[in-house]
């Protein structure tokens, strides 16, 4: 159904063509959504961890937004609003901003992922359609401009400390009983222990939204910590069908290892950030948003997601808290397995709780409260559709799903929600996307 729709939309691009061609091109919003889907697919294929994936979504989205906003008086540039982002270059010739925005998006996406040929072949096919009937030099000038902006954004991205952090020390496992240790079945090392050192996009620093301290570790059965541990265990053992469905729906683990004896396999899914990128598309399509507004939604939400990951990872590798699975296996039930595979990083706070709530605040600022939608994002991974009354409704379910999944204690969820919302609110207040006077008059 969706697929057909996209093909139709491509056909609508086939203008009557002449040799010289027209110096105009209209690209429907769905082409941008489709390109974003493509990026998500490659992120899944190439197996990026959730924080890294959030970075991959952010830079191309910002590039796309910046180019479109150049050509739209209602919108403000993000330069000066995002850390160290300077104004993008302006085109020297007549160009299609929509095409340039697409081009910059795809160039940056391609640079940030690994399987470049997947983006390349997608782009080739797409551009063959797009350039029909369009003046060649105009088309090419648009691409050149897209490249210029992509270079500009890339130079900025290259200074965010990502490259440097690749060689920073690995997380050290010790015999400290409170400290995180690798979890079965893959026993992977902790993902991105130095993500706190990635340059944030809009928050002041990675430590701006430090949550409350986690409950003090205490394996005395009367302690609060033990009670919270037992809560994970007992809830996990008494899940009803809906709780199981909720947990699976929000699993969003990019790499789940399956092993049967010598045979191993893997289940790959979109990341938590990728799920919210999917929700943006749903919201845009439901509101029939134009490319500009879609770009706005992608840019703001992907910034919220990226900064939320930085903030959350800062806390994860501050508290380095051990996962419930490890403690339950060691002290309570050595055969216990959580419904979801425990992801490879410390427990506190819950990443999904933080980033979902930050994203929900961002989306609410654009599409409003009480925005009901059917979430079809996970359909292609074999999961059913779930309906929500609002973005916040969805983000709350994402948060509690981690208890059902058996991978988080309650405080990581509750305090994670608080952390995410505070961060989201800060961002939507800080970042000005629209020239308010113009926007109001035209709306």
């Amino acid at each position, binding site marked *: 159904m969706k697929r057909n729709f996209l093909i139709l939309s491509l056909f609508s691009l086939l203008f009557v063509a002449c040799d010289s061609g027209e110096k105009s091109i209209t690209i429907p919003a769905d082409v941008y959504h489709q390109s974003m889907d493509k990026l998500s697919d490659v992120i899944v294929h190439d197996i990026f961890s959730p924080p890294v994936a959030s970075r991959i979504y952010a830079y191309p989205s910002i590039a796309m937004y910046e180019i479109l906003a150049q050509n739209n008086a209602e919108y403000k540039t993000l330069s000066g609003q995002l850390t160290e982002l300077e104004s993008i270059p302006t085109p020297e010739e007549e160009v299609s901003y929509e095409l340039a925005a697409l081009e910059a998006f795809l160039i940056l996406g391609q640079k940030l992922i690994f399987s470049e040929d997947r983006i390349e072949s997608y782009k080739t096919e797409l551009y063959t359609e797009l350039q029909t009937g369009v003046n060649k030099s105009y088309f090419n000038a648009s691409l050149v401009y897209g490249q210029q902006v992509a270079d500009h954004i890339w130079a900025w991205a290259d200074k965010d400390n990502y490259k440097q952090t690749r060689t920073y020390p690995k997380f050290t496992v010790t015999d400290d009983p409170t400290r995180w240790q690798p979890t*079965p*079945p893959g026993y992977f090392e902790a993902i991105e222990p130095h993500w706190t050192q990635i340059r944030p996009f809009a928050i002041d620093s990675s430590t701006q939204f430090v949550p409350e301290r986690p409950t003090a570790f205490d394996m005395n059965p009367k302690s609060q910590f033990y009670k919270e541990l037992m809560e994970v265990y007992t809830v996990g053992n008494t899940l009803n069908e809906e709780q199981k469905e909720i947990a699976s729906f929000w699993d969003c683990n990019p790499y789940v290892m399956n092993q049967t004896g010598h045979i191993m396999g893997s289940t790959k899914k979109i990341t938590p950030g990728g799920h919210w990128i999917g929700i943006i598309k749903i919201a845009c399509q439901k509101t029939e948003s134009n490319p500009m507004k879609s770009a706005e939604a992608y840019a703001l939400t992907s910034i919220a997601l990226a900064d939320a990951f930085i903030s959350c990872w800062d806390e994860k590798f501050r508290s380095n808290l051990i996962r419930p699975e490890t403690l339950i296996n060691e002290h309570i039930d050595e055969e216990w397995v959580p419904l979801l595979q425990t992801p490879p990083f410390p427990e506190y706070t819950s990443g999904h709780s933080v980033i979902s709530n930050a994203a929900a605040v961002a989306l609410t600022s654009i599409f409003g409260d009480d925005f009901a939608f059917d979430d079809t994002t996970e359909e292609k991974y074999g999961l059913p559709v779930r309906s929500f009354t609002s973005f916040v409704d969805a983000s709350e379910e994402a948060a509690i799903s981690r208890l059902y999944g058996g991978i988080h204690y309650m405080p990581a969820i509750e305090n994670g929600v608080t952390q995410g919302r505070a961060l989201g609110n800060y961002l939507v207040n800080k970042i000005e996307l629209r020239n308010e006077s113009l926007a109001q008059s035209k709306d």
Partner: protein
Amino acid sequence: MNKKHFHFLLLIIFFSCQEKQEPQFIDIAGESGINFTNQLNYTEELNPYTYRNFYNGGGVAIGDVNNDGLQDIYFTGNLVDNKLYLNKGNWQFEDITVAAGVSCSDIWSTGATFVDVNADGWLDIYVCKSGPPSGENRHNELFINQKDGTFLEKSEEYGLDIEGLSTHAAFFDYDRDGDLDVYILSNSIRPVGVTQDIIKDRRNIPSADNGGNKLLRNDQGTFVDVTIDAGIYTSDIGYGLGITLGDFNEDNWTDIFISNDFFERDYLYINNQNGTFSEEAESYFGSLSMGSMGADGADLDNDGKPEIMVTEMLPATMERKRTKAIFESWDKYSLSASKGYHHQFPRNVLQRNTGNGQFLEVGRLSGVSSSEWSWGTLIFDLNNDGLKDIFISNGIYKDLLDRDYLNYMANAQQIKALIDTSNDAITKLIDIMPSNPVENAAFLNQGDFNFSSSATQLGLGGNTFSNGAAYGDLDNDGDLDLVVNNVNMPSMVFQNNLDTTATNSLKIIPEGSNENPFAVGLKAEVWVGNEYLINYNYPSKGFQSSVEPNLHFGLGQSDLIDSMRVTWPDGSAKTMYGLDLDGAETITIDQNETGSSFNTSKNQKLLKRIALPVAEHKENAFIDFDRERLLPFMYSNEGPAVAIADVNGDGIEDVFLGGGKDIAGQLLIGKANGTFEKTTQSSIEASAISEDIDAQFFDADNDGDLDLYVASGGKAFSSSSSPLNDRLFLNDGDGQFTQEKNALPFLGFFSTGTVSTSDYDQDGDMDLFIGQRFDPFSYGKGGGGYLLENDGKGKFSNATDNTGSALKSLGMITDSEWVDLDQDGDEDLVALGDWEPVRIFYNEGGQLNESVEIPNSRGWWNTVHIKDVNNDGALDIIASNHGLNSFFKKGTKMYRNDFDNNGTFEQIFTSKKNGKDYPVNDRDELIMQMPSLKKQLIYYKDYADKSIEDLFERSVLNESEIFEVDLLETSLFINQGREFKQVSLPAEAQYAPVYAINTADINQDGFEDLVLGGNQFLVKPQFGRYDASKGLVLFGSAEGFSSNNLEFLTIDGQIRDIQKVELNAKRLFLFFTNNGPVEVYEW
């Protein structure tokens, strides 16, 4: 009962063959009437996903079931019927399966054993069953030989109708009551990798459904389960794939080695001689194979002590290693070890039995560590040269571990797509799994644990999917033929066409007791000239198979057996002398005839371990790999620093023992009563934060007592941390030390590797050489040596520029010694290092301006020791190196550069192949460190054949620092004037990296003997820790050092220093281990 007797048939068969061009082994299955294919077709219901051991395949049993003197063959099938082939002679076989009633139709058969369970002199058949848990006759079956070509299934009657997932069974008399008991090996149904696997002490919990391993005692024809009482593990994590019987502690009682697949470690059950066993794998073995498959135990060096060879799944080629091998992370490996799973590594292991309950793993030195997905091994003399060889069966029909398949194809999206489009999704998924047959392996024994890989040359090559295998002399021509059971292709029957004119052999056909007619458990020893050969009659071995129950000895050229001793399963022995092999001969021996006792008194050990508590070294926990992720091993465990001298003037030597980071060094005062006493040294304790790497007692301030220099090093520091500075402690004359903080010049922040003292300028005070080990944050960063000149009062200044210009830029220095090599009256300096050559700096009038390198000596040197070992009056150099029991070979390089231009230097180790350098790292490791590489290496297959030149631009490589080693042997450099001749020490000295050397004339023969020790445990699992040094004494002689003249010690640990002291009139060697105790030997 008492009328036990043996029947010896000595066969010497002479053939006058033409010189043959064709290979020694020829598969004659096609012409012989044998046509057995273990056809395994997967379905939606039954496949490797639904049944874990789907591709484990079948076994082979060889034995004479109709007592016609010809060995018959039984194959087991999984989805196909088993087959029994009667040997009609002349390489013709007849399929008598149906008439015999032994087909086991529609049931998944695994292990096959010919054994005379009812002791009537006719072999019965015991068949293990596994597979999906349903169907009739699901239990193991016992086919009793009716002596007329038919068999009757009687397992229930005997109590042998075990139902479960049996892999194999081995019958033997563990309690020496005369009859045969049985160990039934099980491969647990418990899923792997689904729930928490690595749980401490899980093997102690018996399987809830009674499905575990079993030991059954034969009580007058009924088998009774004695598993738990006998001390046998029968838990859910027993993933048994191999049972190997043998006498592993030389007490003539049968012990049991069990290979366990997956995460569970192997078991070694030592027979307590009272009906129970003690499981002692952790004390007998240093390293074990991880996913252990079939195994065999036999004597490979003809010293009478059986080795154990265990197969695993490590691919043989780099391309397959890079795409199909999965290695554990350091963290996972450490977790498993801490939970009682010992040290397991993904490779074959060859455990050399050195006696006294000690095995040394020498597989990497022997070149037998990787042989593809191996199922079983058989150790037997393929070519009758008197040295047993190794055969390994290989292949799995589907590459279950292909990493591209696992990461990119077998994922949920793919599966979902298949389910959406077809109702045979799983079969479709398996269809796309790669399938590559591989060669079986044959390693011909060249002596001294050297083997040559010879499958193709022998005719045993060819790409197959092989599982169980068994040997036997099918044509009674005096050599062993080989039968191999294959999946989805015809099984192979290899005729051994050895030219038996060139070699002799001996076959012993035992006639055992009434209760054990085939004398299972018999030991036979043969002395031929200088050779001593031994064989045991344990037919069940390899993988799911049992071999001909007679003993075969290859004798090479010999035709006179000086003597022969047989030891009965009940322990009694009989010796015969002077058997002339001039034709087939039968000897009958009555057990009541008392044989003269044969004297094989063990060599008297010259070094005796004594219990003298000295002290313990403590190392700080630090994981180098967390910081420098591409390094294969750690360098942060090079302590303890040790210095020995009489510091308090009481005439007794005292010991300084350094500590790790945050752990203070200790000064131990030698006492007249022969003990050491720790003293309080507040100044030394105040510098506990430093890690002590080397130490020297010397008189720094010319006041007549010995002061202490402690070199600081290690890796657990930042790049500019003051605890990296070395320390000088002055002696108050009574053995109290106080740090003199202003005595030493600041040389920069680095880890020191060595300090050595000399009055090199002959001005009456002691000066110092200091060698830089490394930058704690950047392994390989250039370092150098320093000369510190004493002002006569204990204040030192940097004199390198003035008198030691040749000492700059020496690289990573590990040890040094001052000695007058050229006998010109002043002391010269010998220094060596990591990736560096052995260098000599001849002292010319107090100037060290010229460096003389011993050619082709770049090594991973650890220690130097100077001694005249050949009594020619010139001092020789003994230098310790990485050794040869390693995956790292000569030509290994290290490229050091900031490859991805992010401010951090990477070190990429490479191995050389056909002139190109290939990174030794796993693809994931490289990508983790340098994510940009993933663009080139999206798939594992993209990395399969990539050299470093393929991965990086030439310009990047050109600006890299490149280190290379051209000598890894621990070596002796014989002084021949200003030239030095390199001599590798014997193979046993190459079993592990050596870190400590000392010398003494222990056996008082006028030649210096060498005492060596080493090991390095902190190694990434794909390379495997080095633990085969237990302390070694090489006795000197006019001919030098040899494998025939040595003594193994029994120290567990990483030996870092060996010191000689005399205490209370006792001559002692102190062995200092890293993070462990000081072990003491008296001589």
